[in-house]
């Protein structure tokens, strides 16, 4: 393994499908496979939560991504019992959580300082002597006795420790130590995200990287940009357009096919993940098998150059073989395939390194 990667192993406890998942070795580029409902997306969600230290806005994004948040959470706090019934979907076993939970823990194996621990607790808001409101912890059997009990997470990571309420979608204050982490859902990026990530790289050398990636599918693309759309209104909702050498006027990116749109999202999110984590669900979605090899080449190359650790999921055999080929061509041994399987009611991780992968791919051994 070459240069520093953020996570060289991973342990997840009490989150979603994972009672206790251990992944003894991670690569710079990790591909996650497994049957439906074994927790491939949950693994990405756990990493997302880890990178943002359990921030409530990420918590709600995770829930809403699966229609579990029951619509946008109001800015004003809602009833804590209702919040508890939603938050329990993130907790292993989905049991009633009003009396507390076994902590959710996410981090490298045997690394107490780096492991993120989230415990659910009840709080009440009280003024201290200086008149400043603070959250004060309540014993679990007393929350029903207090009329304004608030549900919150106690977050611990090494020496860092904080409490935040989870009945609002407030982001935590910007913390310079926070890792960069971008999650791309199977459905792709929202227009707002596309706008934000484009603004993050516009007129920098990274813009050229995105342009190069589009040429994987359409070599005739000369330039790419984002423009406001009259029909869409707000400035944040802008559409990607491209200039191709055979046409005088730019055309919407989407007119070149859904694959182009997906590739644009993948490349844009990837280069914005510099020095952080890039998480992508169903990476092959919308991409024809013939371009997947080049997409993986791009991912391996950019990930190393911009110091990004990549976690992708797939159901596709073509995607696995394309991953294996790109990993083999890449000079450093940086690709790992993680298969999640259920054994005796528990989800475990089975790892395939690049050597294993070349056998699997050559012999057509089914690992999905």
């Amino acid at each position, binding site marked *: 393994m070459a240069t520093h990667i953020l996570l060289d192993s991973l342990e997840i406890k009490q989150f979603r499908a994972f009672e206790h998942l251990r992944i003894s070795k991670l690569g710079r580029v990790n591909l996650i496979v497994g*049957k439906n409902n074994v927790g491939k997306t949950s693994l990405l969600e756990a990493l997302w939560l880890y990178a943002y230290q359990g921030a409530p806005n990420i918590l709600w994004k995770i829930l809403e991504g699966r229609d579990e948040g029951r619509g946008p959470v109001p800015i004003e706090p809602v009833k804590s019992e209702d919040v508890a019934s939603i938050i329990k979907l993130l907790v292993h076993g989905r049991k009633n959580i009003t009396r507390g939970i076994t902590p959710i823990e996410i981090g490298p194996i045997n690394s107490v300082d780096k492991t993120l621990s989230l415990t659910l607790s009840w709080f009440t808001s009280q003024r201290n002597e200086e008149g400043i409101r603070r959250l004060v912890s309540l014993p679990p059997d007393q929350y029903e006795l207090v009329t304004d009990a608030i549900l919150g997470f106690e977050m611990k990571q090494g020496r860092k420790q904080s409490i935040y309420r989870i009945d609002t979608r407030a982001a935590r204050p910007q913390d310079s130590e926070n890792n960069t982490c971008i999650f791309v859902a199977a459905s792709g990026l929202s227009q707002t995200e596309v706008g934000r990530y484009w603004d993050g790289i516009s007129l920098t050398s990274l813009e050229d990287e995105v342009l190069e990636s589009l040429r994987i599918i359409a070599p005739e693309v000369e330039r790419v940009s984002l423009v406001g759309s009259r029909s869409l209104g707000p400035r944040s909702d802008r559409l990607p357009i491209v200039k191709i050498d055979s046409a005088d006027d730019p055309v919407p990116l989407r007119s070149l096919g859904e694959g182009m749109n997906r590739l644009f999202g993948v490349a844009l999110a990837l280069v914005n993940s510099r020095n952080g984590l890039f998480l992508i669900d169903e990476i092959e979605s919308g991409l024809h098998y013939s371009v997947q090899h080049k997409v993986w080449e791009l991912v391996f190359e950019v990930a190393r150059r911009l110091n990004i650790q990549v976690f992708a999921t797939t159901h596709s*055999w073509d995607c696995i*073989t394309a991953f294996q080929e790109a990993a083999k061509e890449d000079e450093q041994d940086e690709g790992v395939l993680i*298969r999640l*399987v259920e054994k005796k009611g528990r989800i475990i991780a*089975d790892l*395939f390194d690049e050597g*294993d992968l070349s*056998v*699997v*791919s*050559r*012999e*057509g*051994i*089914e*690992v*999905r």
Partner: protein
Amino acid sequence: MSKPSKPSKHLIVTEGKDDIYVFHHLLTHHGISEGHIDFRPYDGIEPLLEALPNQLRESELKRIGIVVDAESKMRTYLS
């Protein structure tokens, strides 16, 4: 690069294609249906042994039979 067919539950791996014919006749002789058994021939003992650790990890695999020639070299392979 071969694409996996349906994952095998019951698999017999052999050193070569000829071994499969032997098994085909053996099963027919005993009136055993081949329907739920898959065969995978390798191109000799070396490729078989190289692939075996990962072959054992195939999803859905419940039982595997390994057919190799009983040669004097077998002792070295087993050790």
